């Protein structure tokens, strides 16, 4: 082969490699885009809920209040009758069955919604107030176009009568959509329209905070000790091998550990972010130690020598010079480790975070679910309304992961700027 031919061959293989690279990246991008499009298209509708406008008559008599009408009295009153009275007025119903169907157009929470509006504006007592009450999940899905209307009645969730009322209301412009704040503020619920990630969000938050508080300092200290102070012998080699292996252990094993020790032996409260945090911190520990050690190793020996030559002790050299320089890599590793912990499902299921928890946990020892577990739970539900909620939760999870990664990049750049 002549020189020119060899050169041409080299350039050609370079071009081929570039092409393969671009092809791979493009394929990956396409997969990601398809995935995102799929999730977003299914989940974006969860951020709105259907409302039905009803003229609520705040008839004080129906409230059965004895004595003066004070705020306290209103709080204690039962709004069910008042609400039903107003709701049934939207469409004439001929019998009890039809009445029930009218009522079922609304979310079971309607009486509390009516009550809430009055509590905010108590002077509206005895007034007629048009309120947009939350529709039931059947109406919600119907309104979002997820129920095909051409099925026979017995295979539909919405009866003909209800369908009729719906169309009527649409004509009267009483069907609307509102931003679904319930999705963020409410906990889990049997009713999809009332279900929210409030509980699981707090659960995940507490879990991650506990995981961070436990794993970060321990991992950093362990890394610094192993990398800078420990003697290099067979024992430390053994420890290093084990740490590397621990990082590869399937997370469900940590769940078993949590179940076996924290719950059975130490009798910690089940289903709590405390236990989840401890379990996940065990898993995250090696995932922080490894990048932290790599960052420490990457600090050039010339910096250490400079510090030592000026009379710094080993401790001062490590903590004043080496550790700050290792921070960018360590922080990146930590946030990535936490992001992975955020998305863990299997170990949390084992330690019992699958409970159906309605209340939003106020402390880490209140039972709760976590975001990915919530996804798992809702994905198993029959109601159509949970489909969009599941996808919306996945969107939230992905959103958090992206935010955490951006924080990692930002922190890394900030520290690296200090270096340079």
């Amino acid at each position, binding site marked *: 082969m002549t020189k020119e031919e060899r050169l041409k061959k080299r350039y050609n293989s370079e071009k081929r490699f570039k092409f393969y690279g671009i092809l791979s990246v493009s394929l990956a991008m396409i997969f990601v885009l398809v995935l995102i499009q799929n999730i977003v298209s299914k989940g974006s509708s969860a951020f709105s809920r259907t409302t039905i406008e009803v003229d609520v008559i705040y008839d004080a008599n129906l409230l059965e209040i004895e004595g003066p009408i004070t705020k306290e009295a209103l709080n204690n009153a039962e709004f069910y009758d008042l609400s039903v009275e107003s709701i049934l007025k939207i469409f004439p119903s001929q019998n009890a069955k039809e009445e029930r169907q009218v009522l079922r157009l609304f979310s079971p929470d309607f009486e509390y919604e009516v009550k809430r509006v009055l509590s905010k504006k108590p002077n509206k007592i005895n007034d007629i107030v048009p309120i947009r009450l939350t529709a039931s999940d059947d109406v919600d899905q119907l309104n979002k176009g997820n129920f095909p209307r051409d099925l026979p009645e017995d295979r539909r969730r919405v009866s003909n009568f209800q369908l009729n009322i719906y169309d009527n209301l649409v004509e009267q412009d009483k069907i609307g959509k509102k931003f679904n704040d319930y999705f963020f503020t409410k906990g889990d619920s049997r009713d999809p329209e009332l279900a929210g990630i409030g509980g699981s969000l707090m659960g995940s938050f507490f879990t991650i905070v506990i995981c961070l508080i436990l794993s970060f300092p321990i991992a950093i200290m362990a890394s610094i000790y192993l990398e800078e102070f420990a003697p290099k012998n067979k024992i430390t080699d053994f420890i290093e091998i084990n740490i590397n292996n621990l990082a590869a252990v399937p997370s469900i094993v940590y769940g078993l550990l949590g179940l076996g020790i924290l719950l059975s032996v130490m009798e910690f409260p089940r289903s709590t972010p405390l236990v989840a945090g401890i379990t996940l911190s065990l898993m995250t520990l090696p995932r922080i130690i490894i990048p932290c050690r790599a960052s420490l190793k990457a600090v050039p020996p010339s910096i250490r020598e*400079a510090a030592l030559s000026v009379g710094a*002790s080993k401790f001062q050299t490590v903590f004043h010079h080496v550790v700050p320089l290792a921070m960018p890599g360590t922080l990146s590793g930590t946030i990535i480790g936490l992001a992975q912990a955020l998305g863990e499902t299997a170990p949390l299921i084992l330690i019992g975070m699958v409970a159906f928890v309605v209340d939003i946990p106020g402390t880490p020892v209140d039972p709760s679910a976590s975001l990915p577990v919530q996804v798992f739970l809702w994905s198993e539900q029959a109601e159509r309304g949970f489909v969009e909620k599941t996808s919306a939760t996945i969107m939230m999870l992905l959103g958090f992961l992206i935010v955490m990664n951006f924080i990692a990049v930002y922190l890394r750049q900030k520290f690296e700027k200090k270096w340079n």
Partner: protein
Amino acid sequence: MELENKKIKIQAKNLNVYYGAKQALFNINLEINQKEVTALIGPSGCGKSTFIRCINRMNDVIDICKVDGSIEIDGSEINDKKVDVVMLREKIGMVFQKPNPFPKSIYDNIAYGPIIHGLAEEKNQMDNIVETSLKKAALWDEVKDRLDEPGTSLSGGQQQRLCIARALSVSPEVILMDEPCSALDPIATAKIEELIDELKKSYTIVIVTHSMAQAVRVSQKTGFFHMGKIIEVDSTDKIFKNPSNKMTQDYITGRFG
């Protein structure tokens, strides 16, 4: 001759250094005089860097390095277990081949040593130390308006002078220099040599160098190392004009090495 009037600052006696099983220095006996520049020359791997690192016990950080023998500074043995290495290094500064300023501001680079040794209690005392050190290193005029900028933003020659200022900030008595000009251009080198000329009035300086011409220019006494042994030690004048040992002559005239 001029040597006899000088006091001995550092004395190595029967110094042997081992890296694991391999011996790097063989029975070194060497006297470094006070307030004078002593140059150590010799081919690569002959042990000169190992030797100066023994003086401030930088070899301690290398696990497999074993030091046998005596090094006395002002008459006290430094290899004694009771000697505090941190205090020793306050007395002996070091400048390395490749400039290695801390990734901090120019001010903080100089201030670090005094802070950890507790040499300044108030800010204006520290400001004083920083200014004095930078002036002694002939860098003050060039950086006085930008003390907050990172040390790494300076040119190579300036960085090396910053490292020298850093070494001076803790008021050492001895300054060790391991090929300080290897990575610098001729002008930067000339500035450092000028600086060494000035510094020798107040500090004892030991410099390892690969440049014969530099050794002749800056030092008053020269030691020639070869394969871990000292072949000849004498006044710089004698070594470079009329060395006693043939190996020394062969090395400095480029007949081997």
